[in-house]
């Protein structure tokens, strides 16, 4: 007499299994969505690795700017604190979005090394003249080869480099207000200690 109701209960529970699985999956997807992580963001392969060896020329025809003398990997090492390397281009709309944040960081004294990616020198010059120049040093990567060595897959991308010249963080996309306050500033502060 007791076996039959027990079998019935088991079967009923079996029918509930798909619903339970559905709930578990929905929960997992919801949790993933709520973290705000974007699956399209590819993690950098260079985190905690030294910056690749490179050497960049200055942006042509911008002689009046003191920082416009190109730079190399050695220039990123041995600074007093962490530095930023920012890949940008005048044709890149998200670069315009992050520009005010870069300007603010520059005013606060954070050294930003700008890599002008696949840009015409005259366009780069016009962009900086119009929106301001947040970069301590300028380099031009017209072929995009240095960008490939950094693992850049689109502009803007920003790399945080510690005193030893190691890449500690990479952000692909514009440094918005939220990214600046929520992700970049805490890391800058941690690396200054």
């Amino acid at each position, binding site marked *: 007499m007791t076996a039959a109701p027990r079998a019935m209960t088991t079967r009923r529970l079996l029918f509930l299994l798909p619903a339970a699985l559905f709930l578990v999956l929905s929960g997992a997807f919801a949790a993933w969505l709520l973290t705000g992580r974007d699956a*399209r963001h*590819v*993690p*950098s*392969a*260079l985190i905690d690795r030294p910056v*690749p060896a490179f050497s960049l020329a200055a942006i042509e025809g911008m002689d009046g700017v003191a920082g416009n003398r190109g730079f190399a990997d050695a220039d990123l090492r041995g600074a007093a604190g962490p530095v930023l390397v920012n890949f940008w281009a005048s044709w890149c709309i998200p670069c315009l979005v992050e520009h005010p944040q870069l300007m603010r960081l520059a005013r606060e004294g954070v050294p930003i090394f700008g890599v002008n990616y*696949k840009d015409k020198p005259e366009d780069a010059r016009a962009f900086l003249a119009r929106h301001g120049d947040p970069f301590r040093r300028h380099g031009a990567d017209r*072929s*995009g*080869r240095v960008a*490939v*060595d*950094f*693992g850049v*897959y*689109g502009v803007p991308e920003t790399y945080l480099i510690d005193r030893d010249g190691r890449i500690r963080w990479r952000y692909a996309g514009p440094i918005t207000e939220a990214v600046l306050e929520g992700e970049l500033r805490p890391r800058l502060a941690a690396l200054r200690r």
Partner: protein
Amino acid sequence: MTRRLVRGGALAALALLAALTLVAPAQAVLDPREMLADPAQEARARAIGRELRCLVCQNQSIDDSNADLARDLRMIVRERVAAGDSDEAVLQFVVARYGEFVLLRPPLNAATIALWAAPAIVLAFGALGVVLYFRRRRSEAGTAGAEVATPAAAPLSPEEQARLARLLDGGDRPA
């Protein structure tokens, strides 16, 4: 009149659909100027390119994509091949910069074990389900058979014997 219009519209839609499906998939956007002079090296470079994901369009290989970055990577692959790198070394060159995500065929390692094991696990669960289903059906058939067999095994009562005899004689017809 309207029916003919409708039919014409359906035909046009069908033709459009056919045309869309017949359009050749995006061909490799290789510029002849990009190609290596040595056909063997060029073939190797193209094979390597088909293994590498274009990071801008993600589900295309760099051999298929006409994104700027894909073109840069195609050129770098050709440089490495021309410099005498092995296929493996060329892939490693790109992986060192962009991570294993660029490999369209992910390697088997700790990070990808779930990916590779998933089909086997799903198959194992399916097989388990099938086995359990058949086992239960067999045991259910066994118990059902026993229920039917038990009364049949009992000997017929005298009345039943008599009725059976009448039936076999054809004497007992329902009214």
